[in-house]
Structure formats: structure tokens, C-alpha cells
């Protein structure tokens, strides 16, 4: 069976972010969630020399560069909101599954914003994934 490149990239995401879930648990055994996020960003910066694009970065449109910066802002904002939810009395067993529903936003908005549609089979896969993530986050 031939699998397209995105499938393998998704597998790398699953493995690395799956291990991240364990490291997150281990780090918050010793330091607060906020400190964990701060040091996580330090970890991001350790990769920067390897990723440095040089002057090529100025060749991209301002619009795409803005999307890239905003993607970082929203990712970190979401992580902060998750910590804040836990701190303000939200039970981990509820907040975890609730926040795992973020792909739902993509599923609802992608057809309007990106004019993409999904097949019935893909829709079934998305539904299974959403149920799985909610159940696994308990």
C-alpha cells in the first residue's frame, strides 16, 4: 500500500508529541506548568540555529510571514489558557478532553476559509479521531 508523504509526517508528529506528553508530566512533577512552558520555549530556541533561513526569509510575502508568527502566538496562548483553566478549578479529567476538541474548529472552518471538502470516509476518520482524543485525554 502506498501512503502519501503527509501520512509519514503525521506519524512523526504523533511520536514526538506523544513523547512530549510524557516529558510534560515528568517536568511538572518538579516545576510549575508556567515554568514548563517558559523552558519549553527555551527548547524551541535551541533548534533555531539549525532552522535559520538567512535572508531567504524576506522572500516570502508579508501575509504568509504574519500567519507563521500568529500560529506561534495562538499555540502558546492556547497552552497558557489550558494552564489557566486547570488553575481556576477545572478538573484535569474534564479540561483535558474538552481542549482536545480543537480539531473540531478546523473541521468546521476549513471548508469555509480554505474551500476544502472532505470525503465521507475521511469524515468517518475525523469523527473516530475526535472520539479517540477525547477518550484518551481522560
Amino acid at each position, binding site marked *: 500500500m502506498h501512503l*502519501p508523504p503527509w501520512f509519514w*509526517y503525521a506519524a512523526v508528529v504523533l511520536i514526538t508529541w*506523544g513523547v512530549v506528553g510524557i516529558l510534560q508530566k515528568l517536568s511538572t512533577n518538579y*516545576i510549575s506548568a508556567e515554568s514548563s512552558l517558559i523552558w519549553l520555549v527555551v527548547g524551541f530556541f535551541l533548534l533555531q540555529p539549525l532552522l535559520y533561513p538567512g535572508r531567504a526569509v524576506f522572500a516570502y510575502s508579508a501575509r504568509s510571514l504574519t*500567519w507563521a508568527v500568529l500560529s506561534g502566538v495562538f499555540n502558546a496562548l492556547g497552552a497558557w489558557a*489550558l494552564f489557566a483553566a486547570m488553575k481556576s478549578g477545572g478538573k484535569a479529567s474534564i479540561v483535558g478532553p474538552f481542549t482536545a476538541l480543537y480539531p473540531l474548529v478546523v473541521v468546521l472552518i476549513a471548508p469555509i476559509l480554505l474551500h476544502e471538502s472532505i470525503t465521507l470516509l475521511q469524515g468517518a476518520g475525523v469523527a473516530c479521531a475526535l472520539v479517540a482524543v477525547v477518550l484518551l485525554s481522560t
Partner: protein
Amino acid sequence: MPSFAIFKAKWFWYSTLCVLSWGAWALLSKLGSNEIPAETMQFIFTFGALPVAVVLLVARRFKLEKSPKGISYAVANGVLSGIGGLAFFAAFRSNANTAVVASATSLYPMITVVLAVTILRERLTWVQVVGLGFAAAAIVIFSFSV
């Protein structure tokens, strides 16, 4: 009579903010990846995450716990998250369906649960076992629907 008490709970609104923020993050990742390659996306993304870390640092009055173990785990967390981020942007760049990529990559708690059982010797709940079943079904469906 349904109870609307949940709408008065702060955690509910913070959780909603999280869902909306991460939804926006995934959509913006797709929009940016249309033009920018994965390495550069991750490079620029990191500068976007910086202000939030600085705000947290200021809120904590620059006082961070000095646990070498905790710090090492958290920094390793960042390095691995960044590598995963590269693959996340690369998946979006490969012209795959955005909703499918966002859903497939959100299955990472599956690996966390399996590792927690094998490394941390945690026990699986029945709900998590059912969750693993749904995750496996999703992966099989995605592999046939591409």
C-alpha cells in the same frame, strides 16, 4: 431544567479560549505553509511563541524553580515539540486535506498513553482502552482514504 452554571465557571472560558486558539493555530499553520517551507515556519513560529513565555516570566516576577530535572525535561520537551512542529508544518505543506491532517496529528495522546503504561507503569482505564480502539480505527480509515 438545564444548568447554566458551567458558563459562570472561569475554567470553562479558559478551556474555550484554548480550543479556539489551537484551532486558529492549526488553520494559520496551513495558511503559512502554503508558501513557507516547514523549517522556516518553525523558525518564525518560535518568535510568535516568545511573547507568551515573556508574559508568563514577568507574571512570575522572573522567579523560576531551580530543579535541574524539571528544567531538563521541559527543555527536552521544547526540542521534541519543535521537531514535531516541523513535521506538522511539512504535513500541511504536502497539499493534504487540512481537517484530516489536524485530526490525524491530534491523535498523539495515543502514544502518550502507551508510553505511560510501558515506561511509567501507569494503568489504562477502560475509557482509554476504548479510546485506543477509536484511534486505531481513525488511522486505518485515514490510510485507506488518502
